[in-house]
Structures are given as structure tokens and as C-alpha cells.
């Protein structure tokens, strides 16, 4: 049976540096869907050990009030990832974000160590979920095999900084350099039935550009975005939460399709728009998203 939290709402996934006690003590006040406690790039090489003790006690002792606790571990090409997995599992992290994933094999390697840690620390087998960050051209090209690699895998996230470096370009602000990766990843994720998240946006002075980017990735089909600052959370939630107008229309579509189907009618109009069975799943999804976002008051 699939893990009950595998498909939970993940519009906003905010990075926090485990090296900084001031950052990890109360981020739930900003109400992100997930926090990503970082043991990787944000933590200086000579502080990797210190970050783990802070992480362990934070996971065990701080009540994050329903916010999902993801931990980004160090890459498989480092000396740190094995101990990172032990501390994540011992602390009871909900999900582990695998950095620099390039293949299904990378996910399997992590999965083996997670299972060993679940046995070592007496946690239920299969309780720790995984997500994979794709940060290279090879990783992006292998998106589908990564998405299909494990029952624990909730989805894939684009890491734009490293990816554009590998692509031999830079983040331009236009998004043109990320088009191929974004398209490939969302298609792979949907084909495999897992979630997909966009890369961070780091220019905090350009909130208008950030908002445009969030609108674009929503239209592309992404489930949410990795974030670097609490100011970005509300923007993402506003854009990813269905409006009342969308909810009302979705309700009409679902009710009308159910009703017309019983009458043997396949195609009809709702508010002047032609509707048939192909609209059903989308309308249901809008209602599910409204429910998960806490804005649905109907009875469907």
C-alpha cells in the first residue's frame, strides 16, 4: 500500500540551513507546506557534523505543527551521506531529498541505506519517503527512470543552479535556459504518477519576476516550488490555490458530467464552454486541490 503522505500538498518547500539554530527553531510560523532542512550546500564543509546534531534534536524536540520535514542530504560523491541518512531516520524525518540524482541506481543506493537505518533505529520499514533533485543534464535525461525507481519516491525537483552550470549557461531570468529541463521533468513525473517541483528563485528584490515564474510553472503542471525565503510562500500559495471562480466552475463540471452521463449525453455546455468527459479529471483535481488548501466549502 502506498504511503499515506506520498501525494500530500507540496506547493511550497522552503530551504533552511541546519547550521543556523535561529532558522530551524520556528519556521512553521510562515506555514509552508514543507521545510527542507539542509545538510548540503548551505552547510560549510567543516560544520557537517555540527549540523547533524542540531538536525537530530530539532526533528525530535521541535513541534513543526504539521509542516512536512524534508532533509536535504549530501551527495553520493561525498563522505557525508551515509551518516546523514542515519541521523534523518533516527530523528524521524518525513522525507529525504537526494542531491545530485542521476539515475535510478542512485535512488536504490539511498533506499538500501534508509532501510538499514529504519531497522537500526526501530522505525517502521518504508516510513521514510524520498525525493530526488535533478541537477545535471544526465539527471534530467534520466528523469523517467528516477521517477519510477522506488515506491518511496514522492517526486523530482529541478536544481537550476547546478543544472545550468552543466548545460554551460547561466540563470538568465528569462527561463529560456530551463525550458527543456522543466518540460522533460514534468512530463516524466506525470507519466510515472509522482510530483514535480521547480527550482529556487534567488533574487528577492524581483518579487514581480518571481510571481510571473510561479504562474508559468503552475501552467506547466508543476506541483510547487523550492523556496529560499518566507516572503515567497504567500505568493506561491495564492497562485497554486484555486480561486472561488475556478472552484465553482469545477463543481458545475463534475455535477453536470455525472448528471448528463446518466441521461446518455456525452457533450454539452457549462457557462458557454463545451464540456465532455475529458474535463472530468481536471475538475476533480481542482476540487481536491481546493480541499487540500483548506478553501473548499462545498460538498463534493
Amino acid at each position, binding site marked *: 500500500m502506498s504511503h499515506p503522505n506520498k501525494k500530500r500538498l507540496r506547493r511550497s518547500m522552503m530551504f533552511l540551513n541546519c547550521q*543556523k*539554530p*535561529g532558522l530551524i*527553531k520556528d519556521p512553521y510560523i510562515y506555514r509552508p507546506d514543507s521545510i527542507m532542512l539542509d545538510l548540503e550546500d548551505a552547510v560549510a564543509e567543516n560544520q*557537517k*557534523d*555540527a549540523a*547533524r*546534531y*542540531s538536525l*537530530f*534534536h*530539532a526533528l*525530535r*524536540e*521541535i513541534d513543526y505543527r504539521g509542516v512536512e520535514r524534508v532533509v536535504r542530504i549530501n551527495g553520493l560523491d561525498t563522505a557525508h551521506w*551515509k*551518516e546523514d541518512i*542515519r*541521523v534523518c531516520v*533516527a*530523528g524521524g524525518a518525513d522525507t529525504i531529498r537526494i542531491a545530485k540524482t542521476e539515475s535510478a541506481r542512485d535512488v536504490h543506493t539511498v533506499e538500501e541505506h534508509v532501510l538499514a537505518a529504519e531497522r537500526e*533505529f526501530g522505525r517502521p520499514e518504508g516510513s521514510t519517503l524520498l525525493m530526488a533533485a535533478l541537477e545535471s543534464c544526465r539527471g534530467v535525461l534520466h528523469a523517467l527512470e528516477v521517477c519510477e525507481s522506488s515506491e518511496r519516491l514522492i517526486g523530482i525537483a529541478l536544481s537550476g543552479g547546478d543544472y545550468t552550470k552543466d548545460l554551460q549557461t547561466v540563470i538568465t531570468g528569462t527561463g529560456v535556459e530551463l525550458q527543456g529541463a522543466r518540460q522533460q521533468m514534468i512530463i516524466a513525473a506525470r507519466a510515472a504518477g509522482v510530483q514535480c517541483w521547480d527550482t529556487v528563485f534567488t533574487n528577492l528584490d524581483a518579487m514581480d519576476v518571481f510571481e510571473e515564474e510561479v504562474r508559468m510553472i503552475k501552467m506547466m503542471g508543476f506541483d510547487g516550488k523550492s523556496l529560499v525565503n518566507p516572503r515567497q510562500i504567500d505568493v506561491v500559495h495564492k497562485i497554486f490555490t484555486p480561486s472561488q471562480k475556478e472552484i465553482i466552475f469545477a463543481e458545475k463540471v463534475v455535477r453536470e458530467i455525472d448528471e448528463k452521463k446518466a441521461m446518455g449525453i456525452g457533450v454539452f455546455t457549462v457557462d458557454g464552454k463545451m464540456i465532455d468527459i475529458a474535463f472530468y479529471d481536471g475538475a476533480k483535481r481542482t476540487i481536491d486541490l481546493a480541499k487540500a488548501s483548506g478553501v473548499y466549502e462545498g460538498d463534493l
Partner: protein
Amino acid sequence: MEIKKAAMAGTLESSDAQVTVEPGENGIQLSIESSVIHQFGRQIKATVEETLERLEVTNAKVTVVDKGALDCTLKARVECAVYRSNGIAENIPWGGAVR
């Protein structure tokens, strides 16, 4: 655990604590500096002592400069300093001596 060499963990940033451990004799010599010493001095002392006891550190000179750290941060810094003094960074007993 024996304190084999001087080691430090933590910073002087707000919500953090800097903990230094050094080899010592005749028990634990603990010195605490904190801007909230009057309200929380006793609690800081208790947390540090309990953590050292769990790690079976019986002889050491321990200096804590507290900048408003939560209990969980204090524990993390003490544990890190003690393991660093032994040159240990892997196979940490999570949930055992570290808890």
C-alpha cells in the same frame, strides 16, 4: 567518554551557543556566560550537565557562551564538542547517548 583534546562547537550568533570542552581532572568545571543568566542560568547548567552525564564525560573543563539557545541547541553543541574532542564524526549513537 574522555575529553582527549580541546574542541569547540557552535557560534556567537543569536539563538546559538558556543561550547568549548578541554581535558580536565577532578570532575566537571563548568563556566557559563549568558545574557539571560538570571532567568535561565540554572536551566542551562542542568541541560549541559545532563548531556555530559549521558555522554559519560566525568572529567572536563567546559565553557558555554550562550546567546539565547534553546535546550535542543545547547545539547547539540555540547555533544558536537565532545565527539569532536574524540575525533568522531560517524556512527554516532543517535537516540542512544545522543538524545
